């Protein structure tokens, strides 16, 4: 019975190792939820590096930031904020939406570093 606990133990060991790798300077950005809208509706970030996005909810209603192409899913409490990492990912447009209100949408645009 004890043997089945090997799996999470291995996973944790691996995540511990990866933690050391993950430390470093990341690009940071903020998306604000205000009056039922994501601002900015188009967030520009460099491609090919990891970025840290903070979603700040100024409304009185909870939101769930969800992106299928970025495979990200996070609940943002009313008047609260949540952070998460994205990437490194390729140049492109990555759509996201509020899973609690599908009319609220936005895009993260990953651009080539330094280029226009």
């Amino acid at each position, binding site marked *: *019975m004890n*043997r*089945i*606990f*090997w*799996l*999470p133990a291995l*996973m944790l060991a*691996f*995540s511990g190792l*990866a*933690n050391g*790798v*993950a430390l470093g300077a*990341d690009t940071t950005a903020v998306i604000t939820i205000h009056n039922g809208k994501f601002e900015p509706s188009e967030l520009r970030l460099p491609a090919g590096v*990891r970025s*840290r996005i903070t979603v700040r909810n100024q409304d*009185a*209603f*909870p939101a*769930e930031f969800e992106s*299928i*192409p*970025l*495979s*990200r*899913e*996070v*609940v943002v*409490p*009313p*008047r*609260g*904020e*949540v*952070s*998460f*990492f*994205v*990437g*490194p*990912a*390729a140049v492109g447009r990555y759509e996201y939406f509020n*899973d*609690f*209100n599908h009319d609220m949408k936005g895009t993260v645009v990953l651009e080539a570093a330094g280029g226009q």
Partner: protein
Amino acid sequence: MLATAVILFREVLEAALIVAIVLGASRGVAGRGRWVLAGIGGGLSGAALVAVLASTAAAMLTGEGQALLNAAILLTAVCMLTWHNVWMSAHARELKAELSAVGAEVQSGSKPLTALAVITAMAVMREGSEAVLFLWAIAAGGEGRTSMGVGALVGVGAGVLAGGLLYRGLLRIPVRHFFSVTSWLILFLAAGLSAQAAGFLNQAGLLPALGQGLWNTSAWLDQNSLAGQLLHILVGYVASPSGIQILFYLATLCVILFLMYRPRWRSL
């Protein structure tokens, strides 16, 4: 009202399907109903607690805390599903005999009853906390409260109904094939949850993505469609998975299969 019903339905569906599968898979194990009920109760309490913490923007759930909590819940559920499946593979023959003969309860070995309660509690807690947070916000905002309340009831009712239908459907499988079907269901369920956990650990910056969005099958099957969502719950369908998710999915499949079939290999 409809929007509320749809949101609540989606939140409840995942927990309801997982509970239906573990209830089906533990068919014939005496005392399971009580433990699953205890799990649902514990899960609801946990969900309420998480929602309260979230709404007060507790440090635990801001920053990367939420992703870590999700990953911990999911990995606990994966361990319990593994234990459950390994136990079931060792006792399926007795359970089968009992189901066809209606005899005494299965006595041998420690029954995976705590596993049942924990799996149920984890599933209910994870999906429930979002539902509770959403419902709470509805209750707090005055306008259209009644219609949203009705919508919420309809959504929760439909989710529970879907779980009930799956359970009834499972019971119709002939006893001969029953436990192999349910153990395969649990195998893929566990692999999918493990991949979700990997996604959350990557989201929190603890695991490398190993390639974000290796492919995107959204054009073929939208993950937000009903079919996409059902497949996401049951077999872990992700339209645009990262490398680490695929790695966790395959590793979990291999480990559970190895543990399930090892006794058989040994006896050869």
